[in-house]
């Protein structure tokens, strides 16, 4: 379900998890469960994207192998 301006959407999480988050953000700068969940998910996605960038593509690997052949490290 999205709000009328389309900037936010609702995601359901289990009530016990929401309660845990509520306790966790007490006394922090987070003003709501939503703002905390948004922060955590952004961090998680950023770190996953960073990791994915390091993955070798087949094309990368072939180019490296070409150089290794030229250097005599691979047949």
């Amino acid at each position: 379900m999205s709000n009328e301006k389309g900037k936010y959407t609702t995601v359901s999480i289990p009530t016990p998890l929401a309660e845990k988050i509520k306790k966790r953000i007490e006394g922090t700068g987070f003003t709501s469960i939503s703002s905390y969940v948004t922060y955590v998910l952004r961090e998680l996605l950023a770190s996953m994207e960073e990791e994915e960038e390091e993955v070798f593509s087949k094309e990368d690997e072939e180019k490296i192998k070409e150089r290794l052949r030229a250097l005599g490290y691979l047949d």
Partner: protein
Amino acid sequence: MTNYIVSGLERSGTSMMMQILYKGGMSVAFDKSRPPNEHNPKGYYELEGGKVINRLMDGTFPMEKYDEKFIKITAYGLKFLPRGNYKIIYMVRNLDEIMDSMEKMSGPIDRETEKPLFEKLNKYAMKLLEEREDIEYITVKYNDVVLNPRKEIERINEFLGGKLDVESAVKAVDPKLYRNVREKR
């Protein structure tokens, strides 16, 4: 069984490290299939002309034959290392120096394309070292060895449990031979 490995990107100082270990009295396995040349005047200290990677890729490299011995397996080969028990010295060198050296040895390099690839390979190998539970490792910077061999060799000796003859190992480092050094400290 423990296999000892010197690794790092090609032209990162892996041969230099093998020489250091050899002179320092460690058991080092190599053959004469690739003789010394102008690119490595003191020798390559490799097995099978450096083409161990092919044997690792097809699963025919006899790792058990080299129990308790140092062998050289460059960075890409780590991807194909079978499960085991390893102690690895991983050489790290300024990537532009590596490119300079590769270029001298194998011809022109399109650095815009290849430098990021080797940077990625280096990161991949170091991540693998960090993540695999059957690997203990130490990273050693090429320039630190050239500029301050005793300090680095003592650190390596600690990693190896004090098995190295540090005095003899230090003598293996001849800074005059190590060209293409861009960073001076």
